[in-house]
Every structure is written in C-alpha cells, then in structure tokens.
C-alpha cells in the first residue's frame, strides 16, 4: 500500500533526477563534494522496548540511511511532535537516549523543531530526524554497481527488532526477552571503507526485512540473487516466536542489520573486517548474484534443496489462527 502511494502519487509529484534514483539517501554534489542527505519519521508503539527506545531508533535509523550510501555522518536534526500530556520524564529519557547515541556516533544534533498537538491528536510522541554526511571521493555505492558473481553478505542475525516490538506490544512473555537489534551501523561501515574495501551496494534491512530489501535491489539492478536458506543467521528464540505467531523471519524488520554486495575476490577481506566489529561478529555470505534467466528476482534455495522465488508481501503479516 505504502509503496503504491509513493510510486503513484508522491514520487511523480516531486519527480527529479536525484529523487528518482530512489536511494535511502539523496546524493548531492556541492562544490565538488558529495553529500548524502536523508530524513525519516519515527512512529512506534511501544516508545520504550527491549534493546532501545524511539529516541535511539530515530538517531540510528537516520545514521544507517546515511551509512548505506557510504557516507560518514556529520550532522542530524531532531523534530518532535508531542501529544499534550506526554510525561516529561519520558521525554527527557528519550532525548537523553538520542544525545548518547549521537555522541557515540560522533555526530551532533544541530537543529530541530518542537510542536505540541492536542490530547488525542498524536500517539504520545512522533520524532523526525534528518541527517547529512560526506561521501568519500572513491566510494560509489548504488544498486547499479552490483555485478554478476558478487557475494551477498549480511552483518548479523535477522528479525530481532520486529519480533521484540511485536512481543512487547502484545504483552507476550518469552522466557528470555528478545532484544531489538537497534544499532548505529555507521562505525562498522566506516571501518570497512577506511580499510579500502569497496562494497558495490549496501541496504539496511528495515521494514519488510531481508526479503523486501533484496527484492527491491534485484528489481533495481536487474540481476538475479540466489540466497541459501541454511546460511541465514536467526536466533533460536526469534525462530520460536516466528513459529508461534506464524511469521516469516525473512520479512520481519531489523534496525541493526544490513546487506552488502561485494566482488567475490574481496568477500573474505570484507568478512574479516566486519568480524572485528561488535555489530559484525556474525557476518556471513548468504548468497550470490547471478545473471541467470528471470532477471530482477530473488530465489531462496531451501534446506530441502528446492529453489523458490521470494515475493513482496502484500500488506503486513498478520498472525495466523492456528
């Protein structure tokens, strides 16, 4: 639905060369430098969850969008829409969380806006952040750089954020609480770029999860991605929760997980580099790019040895009856 809205109304209305590239960040040429520029709004229930809160999420999300273009994040903004009656101590805690996350990433929150809406006209707190970052000269990260034979790598296990939120929202208790993977990936990406490694493309696997991210990139690059189901890291408790709720972890949102495409020759070096970082310890190759028939598709080789096509889900996943 949302994609239809973007494709049929929003993008055509604002159509221009930069927007039409459909990157998470717009890449701007300014006085010989390339700037990455992005914005995102955060609407989440509950505001506090295992592994983070809306503040940390709002900073990490924007940092990650910048990082996926290879940019070093510089400055971010913070706009708050606060519902009348929202607890000040909660607001303070959320702002502190934003400040700490930004500080750890070495960026400053340099401007913002605050609006208060009437009671009942907002859901506690909405946050919008925008950010800019500088893209190093030699870096060119985009779907059109993906090449046949590229290895497809992810940095960590899948589906933790979406499941943590779902369990919290629905009040479902698991023996060990599942924590959101909400994290700033810009440091990890910078380590890789500083080591002279050049991924062809990167994408953070937020809404719609791994499957949706890959399908979008396959469509944009017109290549065929082959993914191996048995190589996908998923925590046991997350798998269990997905089994119980009838969800497919490949379509569940992440907030600290990204996919990258790199030439086979560089694959091992990239893995070694990722493994040095706390957020890349589980990094692994999950598949490869081919130029087989059916271009622009993603296929999953199942544990049973059958290949099936991954499709975009229409609408949200809904819990099954039994």
């Amino acid at each position, binding site marked *: 639905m949302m994609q239809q809205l973007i494709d049929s109304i929003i993008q055509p209305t604002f159509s221009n060369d930069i927007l039409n590239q459909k990157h998470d960040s717009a890449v701007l040429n300014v006085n010989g430098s390339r700037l990455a520029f992005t914005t995102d709004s955060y609407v989440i229930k509950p505001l506090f969850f295992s592994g983070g809160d809306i503040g940390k999420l709002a900073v990490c999300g924007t940092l990650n969008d910048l990082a996926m273009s290879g940019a070093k994040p510089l400055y971010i903004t913070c706009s708050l829409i606060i519902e009348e009656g929202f607890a000040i101590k909660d607001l303070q805690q959320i702002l502190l969380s934003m400040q700490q996350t930004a500080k750890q990433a070495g960026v400053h929150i340099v401007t913002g806006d605050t609006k208060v809406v009437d009671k009942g006209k907002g859901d506690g707190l909405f946050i919008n952040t925008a950010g800019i970052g500088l893209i190093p000269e030699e870096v060119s990260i985009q779907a059109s750089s993906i090449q046949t034979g590229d290895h497809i790598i992810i940095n960590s296990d899948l589906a933790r954020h979406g499941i943590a939120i779902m369990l919290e929202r629905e009040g479902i208790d698991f023996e060990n609480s599942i924590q959101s993977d909400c994290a700033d990936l810009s440091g990890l990406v910078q380590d890789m770029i500083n080591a002279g490694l050049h991924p062809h493309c990167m994408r953070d696997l937020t809404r719609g999860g791994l499957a949706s991210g890959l399908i979008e990139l396959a469509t944009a690059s017109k290549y065929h991605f082959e993914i191996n189901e048995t190589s996908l890291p998923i925590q*046991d408790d997350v798998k269990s929760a997905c*089994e119980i709720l009838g969800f497919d972890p490949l379509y569940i949102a992440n907030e600290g997980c990204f996919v990258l495409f790199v030439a086979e020759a560089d694959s091992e070096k990239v893995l070694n580099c990722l493994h040095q970082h706390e957020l890349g310890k589980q990094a692994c190759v999950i598949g490869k790019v081919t130029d087989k028939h059916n271009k622009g598709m993603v296929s999953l080789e199942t*544990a049973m040895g059958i290949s099936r*096509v991954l*499709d975009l889900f*229409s609408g949200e996943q809904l*819990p*099954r*009856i*039994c």
Partner: protein
Amino acid sequence: MKFVDEYRDPKTAKKLLNAIEKVTTQPWNIMEVCGGQTHSIIKHGIDQLIPESINLIHGPGCPVCVTPLQYIDKALEIAKQANVIFCSFGDMLRVPGSEQDLLGLKAQGADIRIVYSPLDALKLAQENQQKQVVFFAVGFETTAPTVALAVHQAKQLNCDNFSVLVCHVRVPPVMKALLSSKNNTVQGFLGAGHVCTIMGYHEYIPLVEQYQIPIVITGFEPVDILQGLYLCIKQLEEGRNEVENQYSRVVSQQGNQPAQRLLQQVFTVVDQQWRGLGQIPQSGLALSADYAHWNAEQRFSVASINTQEPKNCRSGEVLQGLLKPDACPEFSKSCTPEHPLGATMVSSEGACAAYYRYRSHHV
C-alpha cells in the same frame, strides 16, 4: 532450533523420499486435510520432491478459507456498530466481505483489534465495561476449546458485555462429506495433526471402516509430512486401510479430554455451511442453550444476514481437490492476495495464496 530443526533435516528427508520412491508402484491421490500442511508442502517444495505419480490434493482445513461469506458480513455489521470492540485472529481481517474487509472498516475508524486468544478478548471486556466486546470465533477443533473456555469464564464472571460470533467447524464430518461425494478422487488422507491433538483419532476409525481408506495423522514439518506420505502410500500399496499416527509425539488416541469435555459443555453439534462446499451435516459447533446469552448473532440481530458467494470464485472446487489453484482462470489475474476473490487467496494457509506466493514464478 530444538524440536523443529530435526524435523527439517534434509538428510532424514532424503531417506524418506527414497523410501517413498521405493514403495510407490502406481499413481495415488492423497489429500492433506489441514491448511498448515498445505502451506508447509508448498513452502518446502515437497510436492516437487515426491514421485510425479503421487498427486497431493489440498484439503479444506484452512479455517479462514471455509468460513462462509455471510459470517464475514455478520462480523462487519457487528464491528460497524458504535460502542463495539470487535476482536479477531489476525488473518480474518483481510478476508473480503461483500463490500469490504475488517481491515478496511478498521481504517474507517471501527474499533477492531487483533487478539491472540479469546481470553484476551474477555479481558478487554472486563477492562471496558461500558463497551460490548465481541470475539470472532472461527476455526476447527483446535481453536474451539479456547473459545469454550472464554465463554465459560464469561458465564462464571457474569460478564454481560462479552459475546462470540461463532463459526466453528469440525474435521471428521467434512472428510466424510468429501468421501461420500460422487466426485471424490481421494484415496488416502494425511489427517490434521493439531485437530487430533485435541480430539484424538478415535473419530476416524468408523471412517476408515466405512470408506476403506487409509488415514495417517500427520504433523506439519517436512519430515513429518514425508513420513506421513510414506505410511499412507505403504498402506495403499499393501491394500491396508487403517488409522495410523505419524504425529505420536503430540497426538494420542483419546486426545485432550479436558478440552473435549469443555467443548461438549459449551457447544452443541449442528449442521454447518462451509464456504465453497455448502451445508455439511453435523459439521459445526453452536453455543448450547446454557451459553446462548453470549451469542453475538442474537445479541446484535445479525442472524438473518445470508450472503451468496461470488460466482467466478472457484475456491469450492479447490477445497474439494477438484481444481489446482493455478488451473483456475482467475488465478493471479483477477484474483491476487491484494484483491482476493475468495478466502483461499487470503489466508497464508489457503491453497491459492500458497501457490501464489511460492509458485507464481518458477525459477
């Protein structure tokens, strides 16, 4: 993952596939009754791995798919009313009624909530005394006991603002109806493991005797399904007709007796309409007289709503195994998960949705 990974082990699966190949000497039509099994078969590609001579027929065991359109319309009518909190399992929300679905109505402002258990709906009723809380009670013998428990507790608590819109269905009568149909091609069944967890499998013994057909109670993981198929084919090849229990790690012959007692106490067996299949004797559950007070159909006067199914939807034939989903002229054309003609395209367990998701493009 413990308790699941071993049932998805490719090596064990391969051994069972070899055994199936070895034992199969002629074509057989086998129906998996439960929608969960259909989903697993298509997701894991089991139908592509087994010998071509084994034809899997996808049965009517998807609760969303067999709930008649008129009940969706009744649900919509109740949920529209001011002062109502309408609660449902998630996947009923996208099933199209005559004019819209519950998700659409929710978007227009109706208070419609996804719950994971009818007991959550009862709790909502206690927390919202000034509202009427209605639970949409659909599904087989698997979900019916929790509904029975919620209604029973509502009675004990004198909770007057809670009620249930009941469209529960029973598995053995629909198997009997399929077997007695002149169009029947089913030669063996994989019985629905979850239903038998509650009900046991004593109800199948008369079916096996009357219709001379093997029934193998089967689980939901690839290894379960392959083992169920192996046992079923072996019976067919050897000319045996027995009830066998592949899912013995969960299912016993007598089933969950406290749950069965609760079902008997709260519900009474009635004739029931099935989407695409029509009226099937003794195939439904309705609230018994002692619990009639909690019947939402009466409370909201929607019992007279009686909608007919759309003519170009052939889900009835799909549910009887007479038509493969992708052989339907409307499949992936006028009928897609975004604009489903019938419920088999809506639920993730529906045969049409499973085919659409995993089969609409071949690699």
